[in-house]
């Protein structure tokens, strides 16, 4: 099993609000950033939350966003947000 994305890849966070437990905050959904690192593969929290074994593991990525890409405010130009996102929530951008 290989990670689908690599550091440097431009990605968009998928938009979805399932009724089940998930770990992709609404404020980052639909936003575009860059993969900074691959943390490795981890059990899927969306299944672990219901007593499942969370397999197969999913790759977890550290993704970086300029704050200006996220909010309608005018943040300091260089400010950034870093967030850990699971592979199924990423798409190429």
């Amino acid at each position, binding site marked *: 099993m290989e990670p689908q994305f690599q550091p440097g890849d431009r990605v968009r966070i998928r938009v979805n*609000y399932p009724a*089940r*437990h998930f770990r992709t*905050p*609404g*404020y*980052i959904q639909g936003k575009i950033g860059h993969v900074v690192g691959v943390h490795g593969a981890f059990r899927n*929290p969306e299944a*672990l*939350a*219901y*007593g499942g074994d*969370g397999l197969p593991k999913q790759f977890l990525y550290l993704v970086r966003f300029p704050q200006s890409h996220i*909010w309608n405010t005018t943040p300091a130009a260089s400010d950034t947000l870093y967030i850990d996102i699971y592979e199924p929530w990423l798409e190429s951008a």
Partner: protein
Amino acid sequence: MRHVHDRGGWPDAGPVDRAEHDYAIWEKRTDAMMRIFTRDQHLFRVDELRRAIESIPPRDYETMTYYERWITAIETLLIEKGLLTRAEIDQQVAAMAQP
């Protein structure tokens, strides 16, 4: 539609209250119970605790304190896993009120 626990960028958030309270004994005991179940016994995982907390009705989630949410979630999971029933917890609470 955002869930109530998904707070990043939530509108109309006020100043951060920096006051810190000493943890009450019951709060530490609640934390201890959570550690026993997740680390010693693997009865449930932290992910299940989060899911149970997220299922608290929105108005309650916003007004309950941190460990009030935790003990509510622990109760949900203990009943779900069949260790205790709501009725016996209610009975125990009622029995405690007896002088």
